Structures are given as C-alpha cells and as structure tokens.
C-alpha cells in the first residue's frame, strides 16, 4: 500500500486538464520516471512555479473542481506518483483521471465545495502539512505539531479495496 500525507501544494483553479499536468510531447516516454521533471510544466497559474520548491516538497495536491479533465493519459497520475504525490483533494475529478489514481493505488479524495474552501483558507500557512488517518478517514491539516483543521472523507468500498490492494491489476488478477 502507498503512503499518504505530507506537505500540501495548492492549485487554485478548476478544470486543470491532463495536458497541463503532463504535456502530450512527453507521451513518447516508455518509462514512468522519465516524466518526473515535467509535472505541471504547462500550468499557468498566478504564484505557481512548476520548477519551484512548493512542488518539489509537495506530497499532496489540493485543488478545485474537475481536476484531470481531458485526455485519458495515465501519465498524469504517474507524473504525480514519480514526484511522490500520492493524494489529490478536490471537489470532483474527471472520471478517467479519478479511476487512474485509484487504479494505481493512489487516492483522489472528493470533498464538498465548502470543505475545499476551508482548506484553501490555510493556503498561506507556512509549512502546512496534511496527515492522513486512513482508519478514521480523516485529514488533519497541521502546522508543526498543531492540528489547524480536520476534514472527514469517504471512499467507496471499491476505491478502498484498490488502495489496499495497491491497484486494479493486483485486485483484478486475484479475482478474475
């Protein structure tokens, strides 16, 4: 099973598409690791630098609605994965992107618009980290040791099973 939790990267826009997460010109790579330097390369967003420290440190992405729309490329979750980002938190996702995340044993958590807004209110907190309590389905947003905010999440049984199994290939191989 993958590990979840760590420093948070905020991407304050809806409809971030998979071309922005990993441009098509890198799709000729046949090794996932080769995608590492190009994550979010084409994303134009105030205050966001694809070569900056915030992205380098991040283990979690918090964003708005319809994250991962567009192309079906699993290179998008892979580009996150090879950069050690295994969890995305958003209002909702494009279907294929969301399924790709769980199929890789990663998590794409959906929270209400209000909950996302409340997390964005922490955007300027220095050193913000998110700890994931998978047993309780809770996200603890912390500065140092201090919990600033807690959000509950839920996963479907299928999504949880994929996370536990480490992905869809593992799950399907046992069952079918």
């Amino acid at each position, binding site marked *: 099973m993958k590990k979840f939790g760590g420093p948070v990267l905020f991407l304050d826009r809806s409809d971030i598409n998979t071309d922005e997460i990993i441009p098509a010109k890198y799709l000729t790579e046949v090794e996932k690791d080769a995608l590492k330097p190009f994550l979010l390369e084409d994303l134009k967003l105030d205050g966001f630098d694809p070569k900056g420290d915030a992205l380098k440190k991040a283990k979690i992405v918090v964003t708005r609605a319809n994250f991962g729309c567009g192309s*079906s490329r699993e290179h998008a979750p892979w580009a996150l994965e090879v950069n050690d980002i295994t969890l995305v938190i958003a209002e909702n996702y494009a*279907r294929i992107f969301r*399924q*790709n995340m769980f199929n890789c044993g990663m998590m794409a958590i959906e929270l209400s618009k209000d909950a996302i807004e409340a997390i964005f209110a922490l955007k300027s907190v220095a050193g913000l980290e998110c700890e994931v309590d998978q047993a309780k389905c809770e996200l603890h947003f912390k500065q140092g040791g201090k919990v600033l905010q807690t959000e509950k999440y839920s996963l479907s049984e299928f999504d949880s099973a994929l996370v536990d199994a480490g992905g869809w290939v593992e799950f399907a191989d046992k069952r079918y």
Partner: protein
Amino acid sequence: MGKTIVEKIFDAHRKDEPFTGTHVLSLDVVMCHEITTPIAIADLVWREKDRVFDKTKIKAVIDHVTPAKDTKSAVQAKIMREWAKRHDLPDFFDVGANGVCHALFPEKGFIRPGYTVIMGDSHTCTHGAFGAFAAGVGTTDLEVGILKGVCAFRQPKTIRVNVNGKLGNRVYAKDVMLHIISLLTVNGATDRVIEFHGSTIDAMDMEERMTLSNMAIEAGGTTGICPPDAVTVEYLWTFVKDQYGTKEAAVADFAKWHSDADAVYERVIEVDATKIVPVATFGFKPDMVKPLSEMGEYKVNQVYIGSCTNGRISDLRAAREVVKGTKLAEGVRGILCPATPKIYRQAMDEGIVADFLDAGYCVTNPTCGACLGMSNGVLAPDEACASTTNRNFNGRMGKGGMVHLMSPASAVAAGIAGHLVDPRA
C-alpha cells in the same frame, strides 16, 4: 422502471458486482494505440503475464505519431508492432494501413450496437454513436482489459439531450456539439452518459453522429450515445448482412438497444437546432463558444482539417465546397489530414485533394499528429489555428499556441479570410 441504453448494456455485460455500485463488465472490443499501450505491455511482460484475453477482440493501431518522428516514437511503434506479432493479432494497423483510431475502427466494422468498448484514449466515446457503451480509460484499465477482458465502472447516470429541427446552411454536427458543450460546461456531464435524441439526430448520418459523440468527453461525459437505427444499419450493412439477411431484421434487432419510454434520466436538455449558427471556441476550454458572426477578427496562422472529430469523407466534402477555387490568405498555412487511408483515397478519387492542393494546402498522411501537438503541424508560441479537432487546451497544439475549434467549413473559411469568419458570409 424503464432502462436507458447504457443500463441495458450494463445488464447484458455484468460479470461481477464486487461491491454495490461497482460494475465489472465483460468487454467486446479492447482498442489500443501506441501512446497508452506500450507501458501496459511492458507491465504485463514484467509481471510475466504477457497474454491477451481474446486476440479477435483486440484492435491495435499506430496512429498518434506516424510514421515515427523520432527515436522515442519509433520505439513506441516497435513495441506495438512486436506485441501484435507475438500475439498474432489479426487486426493490427501499421504504416500504410493506419489511420486515426476513432475513424479507422468504425470504418472496419469493429463496433456494433450494444457493445462494450474501451481504449486508452479519452475520445473512445466516439463509438457511442453506434449505440455502444464506449469509454476512454487509462493504461491500467487497458492492461486489465487486454489480460482479462473486463473493466469496472460505476453505475452510470444519463443526461438526455433532445435536438430537434433542421440545421441551417453551413451549420454542422460540430456546431451542434460545441453548442451543447457550452450549455453543459466542461464539468457538466462528468461521470455521466449523454444520450442524443430528436429529429436532428435521426437525420444525421453516422459520420455526423460520430462527430457529436466524439466530443461528449469535452463536457466530461463517459460516452455519447445515439440510439441505433436504419442509419446505423446502413453504415454497418456490409459487416452484418450475413448475420441478418435483411436490413429490416437488423433494424429490429438493434432496437433492443433503445432506451425504454419510462427510462430515468438525471437531466433532460432541449435544443432547438434551427437556432444553432456556425460557432467556434475562443479560449482554452471547449465550453468557451461563440457564434462566428460575433467573434471579431481573431487572426489565424494555420488551418487544420482532420482528426477523429472531423477528418472523415463528409467533412472533407463540406470543406471542399468552401475551398474550391480559393487560395489561402497570405501568411496562413493549410493542412489537410484525411483520417484514414480509405478516406485519403476517396478524397483523391473525388478530386478533393486536388482542390486543397490548388488552394495551397499541404496534404498529410492519416495521423493524429498536430491535434495533440506532437507532429505534422505543431504551432509556435502566440500562433493560432482554426482547427476541426476537439480540444483547445493551452499548449494542446504546441506550447503557447491557441486552438479555435470549429467545423471544417468554418476552418476553411478562416483560411481564406486570414481570420475567424462566419462561413456563410
């Protein structure tokens, strides 16, 4: 309670329901291209499971960057080629026989009403035009599809779109769909199936229906489905005539994939086709749509006619009506990319290629190429393209470039004017 088309297809293909609301379906067709398949192949090899569940149900093509443009794309093609050979795949299409997947596979008769279809490609929704459940998936779903012939989906909800009325002069399926996307927004059909109905859809041929279904994903839709009818039978006739004997028998059988009169829809949207005018996109999202007559003078550097949305013979014929006897405006580059070898040959036989060459166009081999900014027409920063493709994301056709989506007739008209323009003007 009645059922929608997709609910009926799910019922007929459900192999397992491991958890409530998770439907594992058996697959009729698993389609593969060289961008998303090689990593699945490599993973299967690594797991010592280099097998295919049924070689007759796997359809493979090299189409995105073909012929190869560099070493990396050549390696991808090689992986596909060797895999197809190793498993003796009867339906593998390489250079000389290859074309854009969502144009090529329907043309070969691989898609039938009621089928379940997946591909590692978001525009797999195109095949919903045949009354099939056809969904784009990622590489992991594709890998399991190749190995086991199954794929998992959540319970689908359906949005019904009723389009009624006759389309006006130089208004096409592309204009209809861009209009629908502007109503739904890019997130409006996420995780939903779009079902198309109404007299406008009934009057469309299969190529127009494919243009509609192709762009369901631009509103987030899992697939865009058209009820199969006599038009569907006509398109598929050479492939199904032995099975059915008469067209009436085929129409009657296909009707089992119709929604019930009391099927439950999440939403119903009414569209008056007579009010739709030629439109185009003006931003980096496919729901940013405006009538071309109100667009103002957006300058274009390139015109691109092709892709799985609008690279079929009827698109080329419509474009030719506008291009014949004209010249590209100074400084505008024109690219015509027939989507399959068959379309290419038809376009030559009908003199369409000649008309485009006379107008100053370059005619390329069938490939995705420029549509996703990989080859054959990549834009430079700050350049704009009047394009018949389906996606206008920032950087899609080349870093810093702008893509305006529109119908073939509108794109050709922009090439003549040097800027976006109403093709009726």
